[in-house]
């Protein structure tokens, strides 16, 4: 390879630094640097007067020093009256984890059979059905979520149907509670579960399933012993793709959630723009990355790598 490019000395020699360097510099500037700023602001306290954060280097009593403050992190855990874990941040965190977990489970329960059946339809239909999964993406996400508000309202379609069937006399409260939150989040993130699962299941080696059949395993047993374990990396990838955006979800709780459904994304927003407490908002983000996102991303990558290694003969 190198020999060949030596033989044909070309523009590439001069272009290569640009092709590699430009996206690299872009990512450094728009991803790494902002992350560094986030980290740096999380370890200061609020500045004086209207300054939203203090500087790290400060002169106190004529001496220059580096001032690192961890009180933003501490204030996430301890309430002002000294109670451990009794802050609204811990509550919002717990609630976000709960919704993200339940949404992931629901997406898996609905999405796995869906992706499985999709991968086993006739190839001629497959492309069309897959397109139909993605088509709703081209309608405003906000409006699709907002539509649920009308569907689940007291006078909405679901309640009318329930009353027409005589299942209930009064309209059931379906909005602004756990139910509407989970419907909205499952609705929005289901395709994120289906697509990686489908990509995985459609590649599955059908001969293994046939072998299990030939050896006398029932369809049910084959599914659990062959199909599901082989799709492990798809399950993990889909779950991570659903879990993480759910955790930081901002729009769905503000449209479909009630007054109690305050999730971490909303808290970050409020700290930033209402309380103007930038260090605390940064500390919230950093702790979310360190505690949840980084471990999940690492786990996902490990499973994917293992699956890739197993596929090699």
């Amino acid at each position, binding site marked *: 390879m190198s020999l060949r490019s030596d033989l044909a000395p070309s523009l590439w020699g001069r272009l290569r630094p640009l092709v590699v360097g430009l996206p690299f510099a872009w990512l450094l500037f728009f991803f790494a640097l902002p992350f560094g700023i*986030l980290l740096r602001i999380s370890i200061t306290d609020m500045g004086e007067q209207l300054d939203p954060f203090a500087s790290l280097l400060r002169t106190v009593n004529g001496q220059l020093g580096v001032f690192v403050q961890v009180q933003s992190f501490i204030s996430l855990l301890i309430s002002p009256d000294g109670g451990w874990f009794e802050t609204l941040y811990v509550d919002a965190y717990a609630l976000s984890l709960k919704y993200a977990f339940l949404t992931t489970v629901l997406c898996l329960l609905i999405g796995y059979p*869906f992706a499985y059946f*999709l991968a*086993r339809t006739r190839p001629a239909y497959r492309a069309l059905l897959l397109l139909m999964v993605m088509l709703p993406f*081209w309608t405003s996400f906000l409006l699709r979520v907002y539509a649920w508000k009308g569907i689940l309202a007291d006078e909405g379609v679901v309640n009318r149907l329930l009353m027409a069937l005589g299942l209930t006399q009064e309209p059931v409260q379906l909005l602004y509670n756990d139910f509407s939150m989970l419907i909205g989040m499952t609705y929005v993130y289901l395709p994120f579960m289906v697509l990686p699962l489908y990509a995985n299941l459609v590649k599955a080696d059908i001969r293994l399933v046939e072998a299990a059949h030939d050896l006398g395993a029932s369809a049910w047993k084959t599914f659990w012993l062959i199909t599901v374990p082989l799709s492990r990396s798809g399950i993990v990838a889909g779950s991570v*793709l659903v879990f993480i955006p759910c955790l930081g979800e901002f*729009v769905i709780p503000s*449209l479909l959630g009630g007054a109690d459904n305050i999730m971490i*994304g909303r808290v970050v927003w409020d700290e930033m723009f209402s309380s103007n407490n930038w260090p605390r908002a940064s500390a919230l983000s950093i702790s979310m990355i360190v505690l949840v996102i980084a471990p999940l991303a690492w786990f*996902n990558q490990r499973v994917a790598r293992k699956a890739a290694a197993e596929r090699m003969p």
Partner: protein
Amino acid sequence: MTRWLHRHMSSAWLAGVFAFLYAPLAFLVVFSFNSTRQDAQFTGFSLRWYSALVGDNRIVDGFLLSFKVALCSATLATLLATMAAYALVRSGAFRGRAWMSAMLNAPLVMPEVIIGMSLLLLFVGFERLAGWPDRGALTIMLGHTLLGMAYAAVVIESRLQELDRTLEEAAMDLGCRRESVFFLVMLPNMTQALAAAWLLTFTLSFDDVVISEFLSGPGVTTLPQVIFGYARRGINPSIYAAAALLMLVVTVCVVVFGVYTARLSRARAAELARSVRDAG
């Protein structure tokens, strides 16, 4: 018996999930024809929201801004992602390769709130130092580009990995320069992936509300921000009309694109078969 059960359960499950996925879209279309502002009860057929749409400056302006931002950010993101993907897949080892791959993929697993906030901090810091840029269309566009680049890179990278390396080596053996190999051999085989990446990033940008909310300035509101504002205060059904029209446009585009690519790949397969036959 089990086969019968399997087939019917399969269709039932697929139909059920598709009904779930399309219920809100049906709702939007039906209620865009509603005669009153009611958002849960259909009171009668009318076209008033379609005519009101034309006169609604906020929606029209928001649409134009979103369109411009999406156009720029999709193009920039696809360009940068192509370079990044080429660097990762075909440029051999270079220092910082693992870092680049990590940074490229990280926005995929980062909640948008965090991306929006960290970029806001960057722009604010910059504004303090240099007095520029003001928050507005430019900062929104840059934010969308960062997110879009991650998605575009996934699409382009996987296509690059599929490309037949022997073709490139053959071209080089025949004296083709490396940059010509890219434009003459690789690019023609990547057009579909590039189009898909561009479309995906365009959609992401056009639909994004969280990053825009963080990075927009006074007087600058994208269409999703207009919708978000309406949605919190009670909707203006003109938005439904806009969504229904957009749905129509997208469906037509997708059908045309689908027919076109199907015909293209059929033509290519035929050509390949012919050349194989001729060679044999």
